């Protein structure tokens, strides 16, 4: 079985760890525990490789320490990553603003890497506001951005979908 490395990238406390936990363990906690360093989780997904033939892929999901004003993301973690989930917190505009930087950083390490954007914590704002954000951040200038999702680790909204579609793209 093939294994693929992907990374969770984004500002601190946007929900990277929570998304993994939801995806891998199907759990969620309201508590915030900052991630330091890196933690790798595994999850095997079935993907349609080429002609309608399903193969299992083991995702090695790197949960990186969130970027802060004081400390950015260490590029070394991104080496060898086929794709990333770049995550923002819809209730914090600055985390959305930073998405572009994270994408840049990743592409500078892996120019061929693929990107999924997660507007997380979508359960916290109204539908209309969310629609406005999604309309505003289309990343049309970023060809490597292959999908944009409004996710919620709390409700599970689009969590499986975003991982699944990233898995399919990187195969």
């Amino acid at each position: 079985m093939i294994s693929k490395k992907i990374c969770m990238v984004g500002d601190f406390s946007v929900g990277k760890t929570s998304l993994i936990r939801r995806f891998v363990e199907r759990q969620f906690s309201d508590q915030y525990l900052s991630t330091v360093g890196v933690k790798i989780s595994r999850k095997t997904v079935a993907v349609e490789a080429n002609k309608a033939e399903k193969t299992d892929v083991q995702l090695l999901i790197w949960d990186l320490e969130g970027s802060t004003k004081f400390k950015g993301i260490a590029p070394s973690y991104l080496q060898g990553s086929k794709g990333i989930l770049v995550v923002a917190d819809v209730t914090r505009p600055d985390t959305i603003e930073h998405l572009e930087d994270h994408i840049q950083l990743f592409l500078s390490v892996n120019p061929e890497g693929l990107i999924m954007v997660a507007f997380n914590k979508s359960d916290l704002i109204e539908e209309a506001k969310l629609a406005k954000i999604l309309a505003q951040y289309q990343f049309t200038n970023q060809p490597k951005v292959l999908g944009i999702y409004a996710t919620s680790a709390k409700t599970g909204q689009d969590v499986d979908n975003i991982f699944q579609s990233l898995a399919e793209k990187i195969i």
Partner: protein
Amino acid sequence: MKPLLKKILAPRRIEYLEVSEKFTIQDTSDGVQRFADAGQKVRHGKDVRASFPELVGVEDILLEVLHGEQPAFELKGIARYSDHTLPLYFDLYAIDDEDEDTGKKKLMIFFEDVTERMVLEQTLVQRSNEASLLYNALASAKDYINKIITSMADALIVTTINGQIKTINQATEDLFGYDRNELIDAHISKIINDARFWYNAQQKFATPGKIFKDIEVVCLAKEGTEIVVSFSGAAINTELNLSQELVYVGRDVTARKEAQKVLEFARREAEMASQAKSSFLANMSHEIRTPMHALLGMTGLLLETELNDEQRDFVETIRISGDALLSLINEILDLSKLEAGQMELESHDFDLIASVEEVVEMLAPTAHAKGIEIASLLPPHLPRQMRGDKMRLRQIITNLVGNGIKFTDVGEVTLEVTLVEESATTARVGLAVTDTGIGMSPADQQKLFQAFAQADVSTTRKYGGTGLGLAICKQLVGLMGGEIGVESELERGSRFWVEIPFALSVKPEPGATPPRDLVGQRLLVVDDNATTRRVVREVASSWGMAVAEAATPAAAVEVLTAPGEPGRRWDVLLVDGDLGLTDGIVWGGELLLGMSPQAVPGRTIALLKSNRLEDVKRAIEAGFTSYLVKPLKQSKLLEAISATTYPPETQTNQTAPGVTPSPALPSELPAHPAPPLPKLRILLADDNMVNQKVALKQLERLGYQADVVANGAEVLQRLDKVAYDIILMDCQMPIIDGYEATREIRRRYQHSNGDSGEPREVAPNRPVVIAMTASAMKEDEQKCFAAGMDDYLSKPVRKEQLQAILTYWGNRLLEG
């Protein structure tokens, strides 16, 4: 691995692996297993990536290191959770090495336990991140509040307790026209120049929690314009420096104020216009009354001179028109007062029955002149003593009865009084005026009580009148708390009714005990008018009399000749002087003549119409013992029926020399001629020549003489020379008016009098001042008394009034 190296690394908790070009494990240190991924055994020959997934994807880099193309590879802070408790953190280094025996390239991978450092780091990051989040939350909360404050339409100002401005919003800048930097740190007085709004310890809003609300202040904007701002505010305690700050929220209400001002202005204008209208009317009434006075006075005098029939007719017409004009003016004045809500009711004790009877009596000549009957029906046990505005009640009755007479050509007008409701202290009195006149259609009835809307224009032309009377009645009745209404049928007549609540007077009811000896006496009334018969029947039966009625002579004869009757005595016989086709006096005389002496009733009374006073003589000559003038009044009827002395008073007293034919009725005339007039020194002050002439003529005819002056100044001059008894004083005169002159007279005689207190207390030699004014308003009367005048005559002055007032004061002067 060299044993030496192992020895060095072991105490530092650094473990290692040797990995081949193919990533297979070739050698391990003893403790490396604990760094491996959960459940993955670290064994020789196994792919290192199975136990260390962090190497997946970075194979290229590892190979570069292995071939010496890169110095090293490292990953820091990898976390391993064996279970869900504490994690293990390690750093990973990869460097190249060469097998000493084979010379083959291989990778040395070192694992250093950094848990301690990372746990510490986690704590720091956690704190730092949480602080950032909190800061973010605060910042966005502040941002939110700021957004609200800036986007607020109201001006917001925060000052220190000393009044130094700390915060303002956009609305404040806009409202006052200052830039932010012109206001920040400036004193609040720069915009609110009102000390009420600055901090002071006594101030309510200095206490936290207390707020002041919507206090309007005139503020000064930068360019000097005044704006009215409604401020609310409060003191707040700031946590940070433990001091107070004051928050003001102001709203520009200049526009609202302006609108209010415009409204207020409009209201004032309207008020002034209505006042102007009211005083215009009052003035008009004054202006009109003055010439009217002259007109009516002169007409009265003219009528007493030698005139041929045609002239008399002309003058008569002038007098009637003048009277009509005067009452019209009064009506308009009343109505304008009522509509302006200025009419005030008086409250005095009065006799209800007397008031009603007086009005009907007063109007009787008019009705009788038209050949119609008029009567008042008063139930025997009606309470008499009421409290209320008698004059206004009389006005209402006069109007309704007058209308009835006006619109009736055949038949009668009756006024019936009923007691609708009575409590211990109040009585609701019903008055109904029924006529047999032209009546009204329902449509016309609706318009009736509105001013200036007489039922039918053609009616107005035929019957005259303004139609104001009913509008006045309605308003007056409303003012008295009563109701008014009408029922009518075309060609059949109308019935106007009012119900008015009165307070019962505390004065005792006059003992209405009828003479005992009337009980059982027999009375026959012969009258073709059913109402008159009813009046007599009701009243006489209430006294215990046995009443028989007859509508015609034939019916009367029938009664008198009924079985058992001939020869039997009737105590009272009442005969109408006008029995339709039969002359009641002639018939009555013959009837009496034909009776046996013992059958002749004790009292034979002729009932006469008020316009047929010449019949009095005929009736007495025909053998009647007395007469009554219609409409019948209870008191007069009782007097006549119970009279024992006859022959009754004759008519000889009626015309005293020099007295005009009096409107008073013969039965009410004084029994003696007027006593000789006291010699009075009279001064007449009036600036109007015509008025002077009228008054002088009237005085002359009353047997007085008077000196004349034209203004108050002349009055005072004359007083120096002559000691007048009475001054007839016009109020409006040039130079010194009547009021001022009177005040001066009062002053002059003050010392001789000792005290000037009571206005009606006449000092020994002070002349009596009687005001004569053309204004008919009550206020004028008060003004006169306030100036010290003793009495009051309203123009046009009638000779009778003049006589009465002069007699009164003459007598008082005589008495000393």
